[in-house]
Every structure is written in structure tokens, then in C-alpha cells.
């Protein structure tokens, strides 16, 4: 068995040797290098763009202006995240008519070298009429604020709500109402490789190499915007995705393609770091007003949440952070009555995009902060309050009021284990001792939180809030895999989902090895995603925590299909009954007779005479997997209930922090996770996903984030100013796996890609608040920079004076 073992990584040897192949490594004959002129203003009308002077510079082969973008391409269709728009709004790849955020692409230059393209950018003359910019939700919501989209009038571009159960009734029954205001700031997962595209256009075919997580988005963007029928999308190695490389990257794919069409030469465009920071997409600032109706014993009877999302300067992802909250709307709790109101406010900042858990960290933050608040207000133990509300083991499979079906879990056990692993009692003892000592030494705090990690997207989810939408964005999910037994007995496969570092090849290899009976060393990914040979799916995408559900299902299905074929052929050749055929390590046997895969391969592809009657030659199988348990509630019902996602991992996190009382600096002393990701296929791979996502959530909670000035200028253009964590800020993270297999998935597996980024901001907030208990303060806002923590301890007046 290879499933369940940490099989040696298939991808790692090439990366440690510098043999990874990323888009920027590709060189084509006569290739030009493109560079983008971006808006220096947060909000301005483009009165004219003159590219002639730039075009005349040495080495320059093409300049693409907004007028040409409008003439040569069609705007993008509104996606599922813009279908709540009051009026349809065309959005082109480059800015047309107006710029709405600093860094919005305005024009492109292609030259024979990158340096010459950069030189020429400065020679493009743009005439702007600068407009007042709104850089906060408050400023943009003012009735007098300049309209970011005149078509909409107000910058409050969408308002809506979902409501489940009898919320008013719950509030009437309540012993008390606990209220809280919370915010999450702007951050990003900052993949280390920025966006990159190479386009080669011949009369027959347009080929794009692009580091997109979602080749289907690139394919649709180019075919629709350029009206080109024959498009091939190739995704080589991708230097991190995290959701950043799903949406905005299509703008650049189309601009690069337009440039290739215009110049008739291959064009490479590589984004630089500051471009990515200002225009590559951020997660959105979210403001919450929360009211919980609670019983005396801490039971949450109902909850009302108002969520205002600052979606930046584009309508293309208007509701993406709102609808993703449907995924973990009830977290781990059996609360029955909930109302979530949403507002999406446009601002003159970078558009928002998915970001390792998108929306879900905010939703978990709401639940876990309010649990702590309830405990404080009712003088209850915060863990007891959580336990009072947890879905019980006996409740699984459990349907949440909004229609999510949680297959399995044991939330009490997660809490039990995390408390034990973190030595909860001991931390509390040390905390009490140090508090008795008074003002010496650091303040100790512990935060314990719990959260679900949804996985496997249902494309119909967003219809829950757009019942009026005419455009069905799709439903459920489909993903393909193809496996081929080669003539020499080795095995190659392709996947519908590109990898951005999640070890798709290694994981798939283990499944194929076990199902097909091949040695893993002879199994390999035939190529990274290439639409000419890889299968498509509705979700041909490395997103939505999809791999574990769709790709694993597809690989398993294709391997099962190929195994059946191998057995039919082997039974015939070994003159045995099919049921007697065994496969192990690339050898088929029946009794004392056996053949190797290589021998089978030779016959399957080359010797018709030896094939059984009616046997289709070759040994290849393709399988498209859809979740066999996608219903009920794949489509929303009249109550707006829909399966937002299909699997629900869960984890308890415990953070122990020390706060320096003089400087406000927070140090994470221990970070302990107990995680249920269902059946583990490769435990070290899953560990890696948990470590990385936890580290990101911790970094988000403690300091990383974007800072804008009132003029809409982004100040944090570098990774240093942005505050990315190094080895020295990132704590050692301890993991215990507690897998409870999912009853509905192929191998009992659940998701792991976003996981720990969802509860970790809440865990840090809880721990810091606990440390600051002697000051009686409440953590409502992130990030918890030393300054913010200091101000909380000492009150803001003293330092403002």
C-alpha cells in the first residue's frame, strides 16, 4: 500500500536541482518582451493615450493602448461573482475610459529586450483627469463620494442577505444578546512567482503558457475576448497560487495575447513584485457587526451578522468574499438560526481575489471571537461555550441550516486532544503565577479555537444569493484524469488541475500505484497541464480546495478503469479467470503464470492477434469524476439552501503567546493543531499544507498587510514593507492528525489546502486577548502589530497626546 505513506516526492528532485520549469524560463525564437504602463492614480479618467513616441524608440515593436484594447477585443462576461450587479458592466483586459486603482494596467509595450520595453514605458503619454479617490469603506459609502462606476451610481455596489431558521424568534427567547464589531484587514498570500505569460500566435493556433491556477479561465478569456477558436493553454510549474492566480491574471493573458496578435511575434510578459503587490489582487477588508442571542448556559440560539466587504476597484469579484462565507457559515456549531447580511463596497484600491480560504477566515473569525465574547459576558469558560454548541459525533452526517452536509467529524475529540497537546492546564497555571507576580516578565495568553475547512466546490453555490440570475454559472463539479500504460510498462498520467505546489503528482502516483498495482517509481505525470492533452473539467482549476475531491476521484476512477482493462487482457493471455488475476508492482499473475506490464504493453499496442475478441487496443483510460453524492441540494432550493462545498475537514488550534508589556510585541511560543483531514494519502504532503496555511494565518494575524494612504496610493509595495514573515517570526507548528474518514468520498479523504489559514487568525486573536486580560481589552481588529497591542494595553490617548 502506498496510500497513507509519505511516498518520496515526485516533484522535489527537479526543484532542488533548479530544473523546475516556470513560465519565465521559456524562450521562443523572435520572442518579444512586454512591459505594462500602470495607473499612477487611484481614480482618474483617461482622456488620451499617445503611444507614438514610445513606438519609435529603438527595439520597440508594439504599443497597445486602451483604444486598441477596446477595438481589438471584447469585454469579459460577468462571472458568477459579478452576477449580482444591478446593471451589466463591460470590463476589458486593460483600463478603458477610466482607472479605478493604482496599478491598473493602462498600456503595454513590447520590445526586443525587457530593458528596452521598460525604457519605452516612460515615453507613453497619458492624459488623465484625476478624480477624487475613496480608499476606505466609509469614504466610498458617503453619498458625496465620486462614483467609481458611474453606471452604478453608488459605490455600494451590492447588498443582499441570506437567512436560515427563525432568527427573530431566537432573539426573543434569548437570555442575553452579545454584540461585537470585528474587522479583517487586507492581505495576500503573495505567491513568490508573480504572474507570467508567454503567447505564441500562428494563423492556426494561439498557444499561451501561463502560470494560472485556472487554465479554464484563461481559455475562456482568450477565446471570448479575442474571438479566437483554436487556443491551447499550457501551465508549466507554478510558483505558488493560493487563489491569487485565478481571476486578475486573465487581464494580462489577454493583453499579452493581443500584443502577440498585433506584433505577429511571440511575446513574454513577466509581472514584477511591486506590480503584483499593487494590482495582483488582495483579500478583502471585511467589517462585521455581530449579534448573538444566547441562553444562560452559553448556547447560541441565533446569530445576526452584517458583513461589509471592501471589494476594491473592480466589479468582477463583487461578492466573492460574501458567497464564500456560505461554505463555513455555521463553522462547527449546531446553531439553527442565522442571518447574514452583505454589502459590497467599491473603493479605489486593488480588486479582491481568492486568497487561501477566501471569506472563510473572516467567517471563522466571527464565530470564534463571538464564542470568546459570550464566555466573557456570561462568565463561562470559553472552551465550555464552544463545547455547548458543537455538532455532536452522533449528529453526523449533519446538514447545516444552509444545506451543507458534513460527512463526518469528532469536534469534541479535536478539542480534547489539542488541550492535552498544548498542556492547557499547565499554561493556565503558569499564567496565574505570572499574573500574581505582577508587572514582571511577559504576559502569557492562550487561545483555543476550532474550525471547519470546506473542500470541493459546488459551482451552483453563488446562486443562493442571486436567485434572479439568468446566467447559470454551472453546478457541482467535474474533473478528469487520463492514465496510460506505456508500451514499456511504465505509467503516465495527466490531470485536469495544474499544481501550484500541492504535490499533485506524488499524491496521484500513490493512488495509481495502489489501484493499478504499479510501482510508484514507474509512474509519472506525463506533463503539467496542457489543454491539448489534459482533460478539462468544470473546475479545471487548482482552487476551491478541489483536488482531494475531484482529482483524487478522477485519478482513482481512471486507475480503476485501466485496471479492469489490464485484468481483461491479462486473464485472456494467462488463460485464467478474471477473478484469479492479481496485479502487484507492475506484474500480473494468475496462479504460477505471470507477465510484466511491459509485456502487456507490447501486446496491447502491437499485437492484435493476441487480444481478446472485442478488446479495444491500447491500455489507456480516462475518467471524469463528479461527486457521486452531490445531491441533495446541488441546486439551491426555495429557502436558499445549497451545498456550498462537499467535504468538511476540521481542526482545533491552540496558540500560546507571550506579549511584551513594554513594547507590545507578540511572540508565539507554541502553536498546536489537531486536524481531521479524513483519510491521509500522503501525511507529509498534508503536513506541509497545514504548516504553510497556519504560518500564513499567523503572519496575517500578527503583522502582514497592505497599507493605503487616503489618496489611494499603496504604501506597501515591497515584501519588506508588506511584512511577510521569515523563519524568525514563524513559530514551530505542531500537528497531530486525527482523521475521521469522510463517508462520501472515494477514499474517505477531505481537503487540506486552505485549512489552517482559516482558524489561525482567530486563534492568535484569542490568545493575545487572553494575555491582555489584566487590561480588560478586546481584540477586534487585525493585525496585532506591536503598536496596536501596545495601544490596547495603554489606551490610545497617551500616545496620541
Amino acid at each position, binding site marked *: 500500500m502506498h496510500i497513507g505513506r*509519505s511516498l518520496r516526492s515526485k516533484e522535489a528532485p527537479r526543484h532542488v536541482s533548479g530544473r*523546475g*520549469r516556470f513560465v*519565465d524560463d521559456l524562450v521562443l525564437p523572435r520572442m518579444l518582451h512586454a512591459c505594462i504602463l500602470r495607473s499612477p492614480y487611484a481614480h482618474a479618467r483617461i482622456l488620451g493615450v499617445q503611444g507614438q513616441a514610445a513606438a519609435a524608440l529603438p527595439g520597440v515593436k508594439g504599443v497597445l493602448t486602451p483604444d486598441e484594447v477596446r477595438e481589438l477585443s471584447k469585454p469579459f462576461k460577468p462571472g458568477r461573482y459579478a452576477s449580482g450587479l444591478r446593471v451589466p458592466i463591460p470590463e476589458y483586459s486593460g483600463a478603458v475610459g477610466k482607472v479605478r486603482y493604482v496599478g491598473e494596467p493602462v498600456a503595454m509595450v513590447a520590445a526586443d529586450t525587457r530593458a528596452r520595453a521598460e525604457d519605452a514605458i516612460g515615453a507613453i503619454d497619458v492624459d488623465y483627469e484625476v478624480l477624487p479617490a475613496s480608499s476606505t469603506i466609509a469614504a466610498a459609502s458617503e453619498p458625496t463620494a465620486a462614483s467609481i462606476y458611474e453606471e452604478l451610481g453608488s459605490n455600494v455596489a451590492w447588498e443582499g442577505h441570506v437567512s436560515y431558521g427563525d432568527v427573530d424568534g431566537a432573539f426573543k427567547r434569548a437570555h442575553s444578546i452579545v454584540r461585537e464589531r470585528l474587522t479583517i484587514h487586507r492581505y495576500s498570500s503573495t505567491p*513568490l512567482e508573480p504572474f507570467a505569460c508567454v503567447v505564441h500566435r500562428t494563423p492556426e493556433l494561439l498557444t499561451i503558457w501561463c502560470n494560472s491556477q485556472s487554465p479554464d479561465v484563461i481559455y475562456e478569456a482568450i477565446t471570448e475576448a479575442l474571438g479566437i477558436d483554436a487556443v491551447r493553454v499550457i501551465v508549466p*510549474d507554478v510558483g505558488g497560487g493560493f487563489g491569487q492566480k485565478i481571476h486578475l491574471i486573465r487581464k494580462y493573458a489577454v493583453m499579452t495575447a493581443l500584443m502577440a496578435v498585433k506584433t505577429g511575434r511571440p511575446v513574454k510578459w513577466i509581472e514584477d513584485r511591486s506590480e503584483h503587490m499593487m494590482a495582483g489582487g488582495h483579500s478583502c477588508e471585511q467589517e462585521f457587526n455581530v449579534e448573538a442571542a444566547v441562553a444562560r448556559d452559553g448556547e447560541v440560539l441565533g446569530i445576526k451578522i452584517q458583513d461589509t466587504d471592501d471589494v476594491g476597484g473592480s466589479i468582477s469579484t463583487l461578492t466573492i468574499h460574501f458567497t464564500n462565507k456560505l461554505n463555513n457559515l455555521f463553522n462547527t456549531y449546531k446553531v439553527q438560526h442565522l442571518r447574514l447580511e452583505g454589502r459590497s463596497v467599491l473603493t479605489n484600491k486593488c480588486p479582491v481575489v481568492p486568497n487561501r480560504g477566501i471569506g472563510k477566515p473572516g467567517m471563522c473569525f466571527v464565530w470564534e471571537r463571538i464564542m470568546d465574547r459570550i464566555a466573557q459576558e456570561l462568565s463561562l469558560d470559553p472552551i465550555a461555550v464552544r463545547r455547548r454548541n458543537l455538532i455532536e459525533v452522533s449528529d453526523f452526517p449533519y446538514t447545516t441550516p444552509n444545506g451543507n452536509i458534513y460527512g463526518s467529524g469528532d469536534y469534541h475529540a479535536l478539542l480534547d486532544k489539542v488541550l492535552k497537546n498544548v498542556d492547557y492546564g499547565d499554561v493556565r497555571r503558569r499564567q496565574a503565577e505570572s499574573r500574581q507576580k505582577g508587572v514582571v516578565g511577559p504576559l502569557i495568553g492562550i487561545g483555543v479555537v476550532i474550525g471547519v475547512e470546506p473542500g470541493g466546490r459546488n459551482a451552483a453555490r453563488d446562486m443562493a444569493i442571486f436567485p434572479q440570475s439568468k446566467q447559470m454559472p454551472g453546478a457541482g463539479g467535474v474533473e478528469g484524469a487520463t492514465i496510460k500504460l506505456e508500451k514499456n510498462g511504465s505509467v503516465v498520467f495527466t490531470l485536469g488541475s495544474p499544481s501550484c*505546489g500541492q504535490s499533485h503528482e506524488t499524491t496521484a502516483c500513490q493512488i495509481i500505484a495502489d489501484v493499478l498495482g504499479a510501482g510508484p517509481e514507474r509512474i509519472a505525470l506525463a506533463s503539467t497541464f496542457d489543454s491539448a492533452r489534459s482533460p478539462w473539467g468544470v473546475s479545471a482549476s487548482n482552487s476551491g480546495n478541489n483536488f482531494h475531491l475531484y482529482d483524487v476521484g478522477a485519478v482513482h476512477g481512471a486507475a480503476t478503469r485501466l485496471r479492469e482493462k489490464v485484468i481483461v487482457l491479462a486473464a485472456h493471455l494467462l488463460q485464467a479467470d478474471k477473478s484469479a488475476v492479481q496485479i502487484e508492482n507492475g506484474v500480473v499473475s494468475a496462479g504460477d503464470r505471470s507477465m510484466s506490464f511491459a509485456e502487456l504493453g507490447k501486446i496491447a499496442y502491437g499485437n492484435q492477434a493476441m487480444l481478446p475478441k472485442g478488446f479495444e487496443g491500447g491500455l489507456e483510460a480516462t475518467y471524469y469524476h463528479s461527486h457521486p453524492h452531490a445531491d441533495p441540494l446541488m441546486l439551491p432550493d426555495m429557502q436558499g439552501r445549497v451545498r456550498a462545498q462537499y467535504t468538511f475537514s476540521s481542526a482545533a488550534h491552540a496558540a500560546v503567546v507571550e506579549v511584551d508589556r513594554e513594547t507590545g510585541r507578540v511572540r508565539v511560543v507554541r502553536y498546536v493543531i489537531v486536524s481531521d483531514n479524513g483519510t491521509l494519502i500522503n501525511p*507529509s504532503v498534508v503536513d*506541509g499544507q497545514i504548516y504553510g496555511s497556519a504560518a500564513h494565518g499567523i503572519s496575517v494575524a500578527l503583522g502582514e498587510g497592505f497599507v493605503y494612504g487616503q489618496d489611494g496610493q499603496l504604501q506597501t509595495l515591497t515584501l519588506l514593507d508588506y511584512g511577510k514573515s521569515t523563519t524568525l517570526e514563524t513559530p514551530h507548528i505542531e500537528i497531530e492528525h486525527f482523521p475521521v474518514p469522510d463517508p462520501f468520498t472515494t477514499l474517505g479523504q477531505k481537503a487540506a489546502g486552505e485549512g489552517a489559514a482559516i482558524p489561525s487568525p482567530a486563534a492568535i486573536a484569542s490568545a493575545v486577548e487572553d494575555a491582555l486580560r489584566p487590561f480588560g481589552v478586546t481584540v477586534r481588529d487585525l493585525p496585532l502589530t506591536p503598536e496596536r497591542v501596545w495601544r490596547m494595553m495603554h489606551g490610545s490617548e497617551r500616545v496620541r497626546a
Partner: protein
Amino acid sequence: MKHTVDLTVNGEACSETVEARTLLVHLLRDQLGLTGTHVGCVVGECGACSVLVDGKLVKSCLMLAVQADGRDVTTIEGLSGGAALHPVQEAFVQRFALQCGFCTPGFVMAAHALLCANPDPTEAEIRQVLSSNLCMCTGYVQIVEAVKEAAARLRSCT
């Protein structure tokens, strides 16, 4: 005006013509085809372009190619002599110390530089030296483990 730069890269002498503004990383990638050295920020923050110059860890995006004239450069491609992986590389594979792989060459070079100078580093020393490099995927846990493992492997073979 063009400049001729004579340098040794991975043990081979080369002579390249560059513009004064050409960065060492671009000389390596674009002229010598050594694409294992990556560009993640081009302002010396992320460390994906880390190489050794005269045995010292440097960020090749913060160095002009003309500044490398007469110097000895080792890139990720030059770390292992032949087909076998260098012990640091092998430890990174064994310990799952990478995900997307974009930062990996830089981390391997940083770890290699560390272990050349200090064959038995503490975890604190490992974390200190690796703070020159950023990884967005791993949370560093498995990278630190890999460096410990590499140190043990290297000590056992000397």
C-alpha cells in the same frame, strides 16, 4: 556601451558581454541559460535568486553583472557534481521541504552556505541564516528539518 565580464560559473570560465545595467541574475538566466536561479522580487528581499559568489551567499538580483567580473559564482545547477543530489538537496527531498519549488533553489543555496560555515548549527542558527529567504508555501517547518537532516548527513560523511 557594452562590457565584457569574465567570471567562473559552476567551475567553468565564461566571458560574456553585458550592458552595465544587466543584473547578475539576468546574466545567469538569460545569457547562460541557468534558469534555476529565480526572480521573485528583484529587489533583494525574497532570496529566490540566491547564489554563491566567492563562496558567500548573495542575492544575484542585487548585484550587477559587471560587479561579478573576475569572481567565482556557484548556482543551484552547480551544487551537485553529477546525477546524484547533493546531501542538502537530498534532505530537502526527503523532508518535503518544498511545495511550489520557486524559492527552493535559493533556500538550498542558503542552507549550503550555512552548512559550509557551520556544520552543526542549532535550530536558532538555521532560522537566523534562512531569514534571508522567503517561502510562501511551507511555513518553514520542513525546511528547517531538512537543514538539520542535511547537517547530520554531511557530518556523517566527513
